C-alpha cells in the first residue's frame, strides 16, 4: 500500500505544473470561440513532451507508463482547463489497443502518440443512453467490407478527430457490439461540430459509410468499450480533482482578501466552515479518483468497475458542491463570464455528464460492479 509518487511521476507532475504556469486559463478562454477549440501547436508540444503516449505501450511509441501517470498529468492540465483532446484520444486509443491487432494499433494509435492525429470514441446514441449502452447503429458485411449506418451523439472532440472509433451492432447478432475505425473524410460520414457547455466541442456524427475489413477491430467490442469508458471516467475524476483543488484555492484566496462590512469575509465562521466542507469534499474525491486510476491499471474488471463507479459518483457529489460553493462564496463576480470560476464550474458540469452520470454509476455500483 503506497501512495507515494515515483521519481518518474514526480517529474511528470513537475513538467505539467510548469506547462500550466505558461498556459493559464486565459488560453482556454480565448479558444472558446475558435472553430477548433484547442491549439495544434500545444498538441505538438505535448507530443514532444511524451505526454500523448504516457499511458500507452512502447509498441505504439508510448512510454509504457500507467493510467496513474496519465491521471497525474490530467489533474494538472485540469487545473488550467487545458482543452487539448488528450483524454478523448486516450479513450479511443485504449479501445483500439483492447480490440485491435498490431496493424491497427500501428495505423491509428501510433500517429496520435506522435501528435499527428487525434482520436475520438463515437458510442453514444439516443436521448436515453444514461442507463443504456444499447447500440442501434448497425454494421452489415458486404462486398466492399462493412456498411455502417447510424447516428452518434456528443462525440467528444469528434469535430477534429483524425479517426473515429465507432460502435455498431453486427446485423443479425443480438446484443453485439463491434468497433470500427472510421475517418471523417470517408464518403457517407457527416460530422457536425457542436459547442458544449464547457466551451469545448463535440460532434454529431451521421454514418452511412462502407469501410474495408481492416477497419474492423476484431476483438470483442464489449469489454473494450467498457474499459475505454472506465478509463474516460477515471481520467474525468482526475481532471475534476484538478478543478476542485483550483477553485478551492481560488476561493480561499478570495475569502482572505475580499472585504465587506470592514473585515475580510474569510473571518465569517459560516464561510469558513463552507470552505472547510469544500476542502473535505476535495480530499475525499481525490482519494477515490486515485483508487480508480490504480484499478484501471489492474486486471480485476470487477474491482475496476466498482472503483470507477465510486469515484465518478463522488466526483458528482463533491465536484458539484465545491464548484457551486466556489461561485456562491465569490458572490456576484462569480456569476460573470469574465471570472474564471464559472469556467471551472461549467467544465465540472460536463465532466459529470460524460462517461456515465451519477445515477448510472450508483446503479452499477449497487449491482456489484
Amino acid at each position, binding site marked *: 500500500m503506497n501512495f507515494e509518487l515515483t521519481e518518474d511521476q514526480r517529474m511528470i507532475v513537475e513538467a505539467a505544473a510548469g506547462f500550466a504556469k505558461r498556459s493559464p486559463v486565459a488560453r482556454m478562454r480565448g479558444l472558446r470561440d475558435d472553430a477548433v477549440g484547442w491549439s495544434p501547436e500545444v498538441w505538438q508540444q505535448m507530443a514532444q513532451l511524451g505526454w500523448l503516449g504516457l499511458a500507452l505501450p512502447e509498441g505504439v511509441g508510448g512510454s509504457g507508463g500507467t493510467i496513474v501517470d496519465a491521471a497525474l498529468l490530467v489533474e494538472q492540465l485540469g487545473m488550467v482547463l487545458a482543452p487539448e483532446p488528450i483524454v478523448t484520444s486516450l479513450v479511443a486509443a485504449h479501445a483500439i489497443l483492447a480490440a485491435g491487432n498490431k496493424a491497427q494499433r500501428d495505423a491509428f494509435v501510433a500517429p496520435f502518440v506522435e501528435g499527428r492525429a487525434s482520436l475520438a470514441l463515437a458510442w453514444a446514441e439516443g436521448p436515453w443512453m444514461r442507463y443504456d449502452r444499447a447500440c442501434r447503429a448497425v454494421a452489415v458485411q458486404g462486398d466492399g467490407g462493412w456498411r455502417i449506418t447510424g447516428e452518434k451523439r456528443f462525440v467528444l472532440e469528434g469535430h477534429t478527430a483524425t479517426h473515429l472509433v465507432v460502435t455498431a451492432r453486427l446485423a443479425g447478432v443480438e446484443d453485439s457490439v463491434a468497433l470500427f475505425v472510421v475517418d471523417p473524410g470517408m464518403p457517407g460520414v457527416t460530422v457536425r461540430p457542436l459547442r458544449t457547455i464547457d466551451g469545448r466541442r463535440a460532434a454529431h456524427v451521421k454514418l452511412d459509410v462502407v469501410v474495408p475489413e481492416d477497419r474492423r477491430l476484431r476483438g470483442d467490442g464489449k469489454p473494450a468499450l467498457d474499459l475505454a469508458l472506465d478509463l474516460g471516467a477515471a481520467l474525468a475524476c482526475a481532471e475534476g480533482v484538478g478543478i476542485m483543488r483550483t477553485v478551492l484555492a481560488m476561493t480561499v484566496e478570495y475569502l482572505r482578501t475580499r472585504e465587506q462590512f470592514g473585515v475580510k469575509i474569510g473571518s465569517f465562521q459560516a464561510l469558513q466552515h463552507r470552505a472547510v466542507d469544500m476542502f473535505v469534499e476535495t480530499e475525499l474525491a481525490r482519494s477515490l479518483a486515485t483508487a480508480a486510476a490504480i484499478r484501471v491499471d489492474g486486471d480485476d474488471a470487477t474491482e475496476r468497475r466498482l472503483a470507477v463507479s465510486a469515484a465518478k459518483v463522488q466526483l458528482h457529489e463533491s465536484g458539484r458542491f465545491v464548484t457551486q460553493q466556489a461561485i456562491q462564496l465569490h458572490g456576484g463576480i*462569480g*456569476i*460573470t463570464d469574465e471570472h474564471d470560476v464559472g469556467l471551472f464550474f461549467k467544465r465540472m*458540469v460536463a465532466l459529470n455528464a460524460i462517461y456515465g452520470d451519477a*445515477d448510472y454509476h450508483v446503479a452499477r455500483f449497487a449491482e456489484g460492479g
Partner: protein
Amino acid sequence: MDLSFSPEHLAFRDEVRAFILTEMPPHLRAKAEVDAHFEHHEVMEWHRILHRRGWVAPLWPAELGGPGLDATSRFILSEELELANAPALSPFGLAMVGPAIIQYGDDAQKQRFLPKILSGEEVWCQGYSEPNAGSDLASLRTRAERDGDHFIVNGQKTWTTYAQHADWIFCLVRTDPNAKKQSGITFLLIDLKTPGVTVRPFLTIGGTPAFSETFFDNVRVPVANVVGAIDAGWTVAKALLGHERTLIAAVGAIGRTIRTCKQIADAHDLDQDPVVLAKIARLEIRHRALQMTNYRALAGAQLGHAPGPESSILKIRGAELVQQAYELAMELMGHDALAWFPEEGIVPELEAGIASAFCYLRATTIYGGSNEIQKNIIAKHLLGLS
C-alpha cells in the same frame, strides 16, 4: 382554515384564464409552451397587453393606476400568469421604483414617472450594487456632489439588470461622504441618456447579457430627481425589500421547471424509473412546502397582517429550489446537458434553454441579499441571536 377560494375569487380566476387565452398572441403562446424564454421586446409587448386590461401593476393603489384588487385576487392573477408561462414583466419599474415613488415621491414625480412605468413607455433598471459593495451594500461609493440645482454623479454600479434595455435607473448614491454607512445615502433617479452615463453589458456564466455595468462620469442629475429626503435613501431602499412579486415568481418558476423535468423524464424514457420518480417527487414536495408557506404569507397579507416569520424564509428556500429544479433537469437530460445554445436539432426544443438558465441561476442565492445575509438577518431579528 381553508385552502379553497370564495366564489368571487373563483370567478376572478376564470376571468384571468379567459383573458390569457384570448389575449396572448400566438407567437408568445408558442414560446410559453416550450420554455418561456422571452426577448425583451416580447416582454414589453405583453406588458402593453396587460396594461390595457389594467393588470400591469396589481399592487398599486387604484387612484394611481392599480387595479384595486384584494390580496387573494392579486395572488390569483400572479399565479395564473405564472401557470400560463406568460412573460415575466420587468419588476424594476412596476414593483420597485414605482412603489418607492408612490410611497416617498412628491406629486411632480408621481405625475412625471408613474404613467410611463404603467404604459411601458419608460423602462427602468436598478443601480444598487457596486464592485466593492455587494452584501455590504451600505459601503457604496458612487458619490453625488451638490452643484446648485443638480448633483454631479461619479462612480460605478454593477448588476444593473438589463440596463441595456432601460431608459432610467434608480440609484443609491452617497451624498454625505462623512456620514457613517447607511446614513448619507440618497435615492436618485437618473435618465440613462444623460451625458456621462455609459452602460456596458456583460455576459453571465449562462452566456447571456442579463446584466450591465453602468458608469457615471460627471453626470448632472437634477435635485428634483431625489426620492424621499436627501441623505435618507436607505429608508427608501429598505422599504422595497422583499416585495410580493418576487416570491410568487420563484414559486411559479420552480413549478414550471418541475413540469419541464417531468417532460424531460418522459422524453428520455425515465418516467418509470423509481429513482428518478423519487427525485422528482421529493423536489415537488419541497416546492409544495414553499408554495403553502407563500399561501400563509399571502393569506396574512389579505387580512392586513404584517409579514409573519414565514415570509422571511421564502427568499432563502425559493432561491435554493430554483437551483435544485434546474439541476435535476440537467441530470435528467443526460448527455443533452452538454449542448450549449443555440444548437438546433441536437436536443429537443424543451431542453434548449435549460443549460444556460441552470448556469446563470446560480445567482438566485446571491442577488437580492445573499442567502447568507438573509440568514444573518433572521438569526438577529427573528431568533435574537447576535
